């Protein structure tokens, strides 16, 4: 190689490095610039996220829903089934990248969280086509702390008891009409060997008692509210903790007794999440399970339709109450096709969308109880057990309080409750005073104190 040729080569190499570094620097600065004021394009494809496991029948139904939407509107829509357990984590990652999906179908309980972070757009209730046909209670679950709407209802559900009918016949008990009777039944299921295998391996009550995603609070809400207690109560313009009120403390004492005195819960309940408890119930290790209607197809298959019955949770000192929740269609911020988002939400809530979501053909239920009053879910399904859930929802259903961020309060209270059921020697009154203090601090932080 000659001298003339070599020299510029070295220079070129430096040039190349400088270029790489410049590009790197540009990318770094590019990363930190915001993404607001998105240019609108009415035909831009939509990315739709749903909290279902990929490949499950529910994901198939969601796929059918997006397909039907695309055919009707001409807007391309791509479904992404994001796993049940790490949905929030995945969404958080996309938030960090400032590139959100256009539509997210997720729990009503996440609404406050999404609003506080500014991830969702406000919804004009009157501006949603067919909004009058949607149930008021479902709209309530789409309402933020400020009274504005931040989602379009898509699915609702209430919790009811699944009781092993064959076991109940075996021990000769009636359907329980109070929480005390329910506990008595659970004691019989635990002690009387209802499955007749000669082993002491059955539990009366199946409880997801972990703090993960606030499962224990989720499960306990129905019991707490029926007994007249609450996590928070409305005072003036905001909320105050109610978990240390007398009625609440009594309910928590009953909960602790289930774990510590009568010992009717399944072994390992304090760290069990719902995927564990589903298995406990369907494998015949537990007799009473408070859960949502979406479990029916699975238990029909694994346990058998004739083995269990669906019963509304009994009334307590505070009358009848059952946790109601559901899912909303959230229109995420920063979308290139806001009009398309709205059309998707409208389609999902319309009778046509709701019927696809019922999953009558494939068992993939993404609409448990239809939010559209023009659709009769139980009739479509030809299964009266769904009517029990529908009635519970209509008469006793209660949405989680519309705090700026309910999921944080749910998390905090599940930790407090987990403490008293894990440590049987702990005084419930004192523990609930402490928990009330923590909830109070959280309310203060959220600016929701009355």
């Amino acid at each position, binding site marked *: 190689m000659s001298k003339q040729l*070599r020299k510029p080569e*070295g220079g070129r190499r430096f040039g190349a490095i400088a270029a*790489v570094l410049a590009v790197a620097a540009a990318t770094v600065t590019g990363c930190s610039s915001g993404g607001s004021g998105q240019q609108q394009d009415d035909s831009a494809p939509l990315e739709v996220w749903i909290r279902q496991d990929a490949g499950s029948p529910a994901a198939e139904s969601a796929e059918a829903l997006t397909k039907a939407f695309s055919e009707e509107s001409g807007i391309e829509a791509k479904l992404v089934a994001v796993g049940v357990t790490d949905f929030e984590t995945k969404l*958080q990652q996309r938030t960090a990248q*400032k590139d959100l999906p256009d539509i997210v179908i997720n729990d009503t309980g996440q609404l406050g969280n999404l609003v506080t*972070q500014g991830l969702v757009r406000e919804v004009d209730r009157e501006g949603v086509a067919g909004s009058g046909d949607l149930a008021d209670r479902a709209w309530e679950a789409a309402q933020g702390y400020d009274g504005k709407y931040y989602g379009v209802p898509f699915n609702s559900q209430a919790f009811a008891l699944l009781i092993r009918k064959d076991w109940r016949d075996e021990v000769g008990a009636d359907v329980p009409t109070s929480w005390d009777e329910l506990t008595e039944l659970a004691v019989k299921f635990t002690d009387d060997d209802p499955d007749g295998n000669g082993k002491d391996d059955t539990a009366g009550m199946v409880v997801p008692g972990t703090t993960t995603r606030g499962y224990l609070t989720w499960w306990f809400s129905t019991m707490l509210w029926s007994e007249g207690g609450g996590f928070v109560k409305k005072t003036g313009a905001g909320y105050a903790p109610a978990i240390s009120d007398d009625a609440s403390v009594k309910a928590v004492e009953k909960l602790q007794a289930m774990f510590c005195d009568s010992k009717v819960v399944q072994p*390992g309940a304090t760290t069990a999440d719902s995927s564990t408890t589903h298995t406990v119930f369907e494998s015949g290790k537990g007799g009473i399970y408070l859960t949502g209607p979406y479990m029916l197809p699975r238990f029909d298959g694994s346990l058998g339709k004739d083995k269990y019955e669906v019963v509304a949770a009994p009334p307590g000192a505070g009358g009848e109450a059952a946790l109601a929740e559901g899912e909303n269609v959230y229109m995420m911020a920063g979308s290139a096709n806001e009009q398309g988002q709205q059309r998707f939400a409208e389609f999902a809530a319309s009778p046509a969308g709701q019927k696809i979501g019922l999953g009558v053909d494939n068992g993939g239920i993404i609409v448990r109880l239809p939010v559209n009053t023009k659709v009769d879910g139980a009739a479509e399904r030809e299964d009266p057990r769904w009517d029990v859930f529908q009635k519970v929802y209509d008469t006793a259903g209660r949405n989680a309080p519309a705090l700026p961020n309910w999921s944080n309060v749910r998390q905090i209270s599940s930790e407090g409750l*987990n403490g008293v059921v*894990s440590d049987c020697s702990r005084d419930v009154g004192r523990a609930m005073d402490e928990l009330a203090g923590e909830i109070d601090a959280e309310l203060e932080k959220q600016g929701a104190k009355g």
Partner: protein
Amino acid sequence: MTVTEARTSRGPATKGAPRTAPPVRTRLRRAATPWLFLAPALLLFLYFKFIPMAEAVRMSFQEVRPFLGNTYVGGANYSEIAGKSDFGAAVWHTVVLAVATTAGSIVLGMVLALLLEGQTRSLWFIRSAIFLPVVTAMAVVAEVWRVMYYPAEGGALNSVLSVIGLGPSEFLNSPDSSLASIAFVGVWRGAPYDMMIFLAGLAGVDRVLYEASAVDGASRFRRIWHVTLPGLRPVFAILLTLAAIRGLRIFTEVFLLTNGGPDGSTEVLLTLTYKLGLERNELGVAAAGTVLLFAILLVLTVASRVRRRGVR
């Protein structure tokens, strides 16, 4: 390739003026050569380590809301995380787990290594079998142990306990035994790894010393105490360093076995950070937690370095 080019290119440039210092460009090129080789690695580090680290430090001073814009909150995140009773407990649990797992793994690993030292073919097989837990995915290990720890009479470990008249134990499910149960899994998984490193170390101990001490009438125990252990000193240094880092970063086992429960009795630093950041969306506070962990590790590392230098 680049090496040879760089060398040959130096030749003609220096030929013209052999006694004076090389021209500026050549000197620059010489200085730049090592950086060129480092550039790919440095770029990767920059993107995947240093920028995220700097970002975490920045986030720890902010209330993080990616879509609404972050707001500077000063040291509020730090006072919040340090003031949390959970945080103190998490630090304590992390340290207890790290110490218990490290000590257990080293002792058991040492015993295993002494038992399985040698060249026999069958030993090779047993060593591989014992090493299996290390190569098995942690998720699988945790799931298997969850099943074995089933807290009622029918559980695998509880059936064993009942044979010797004990139990049933609650294992992971009681605040009293949960941490110990996790540490046991850690030892079960860590000991074979330590064993392998000990075996390598044992191979380096001079056989003549064993023979000499045997001739001098030293008992088996004395031979281990006075010959083997001193010979393994560098191995201990490596193992302790690795174990300290591994121990303080413990996450997967805890996350899968108990996720911090019951009653927060197994909450460690990283599960707490995970919960704050990704379940409660308080990324700023979570970032403050990780920065604190980083600071603790930094202080510990520097302290141990200074101490070692002092000893020398």
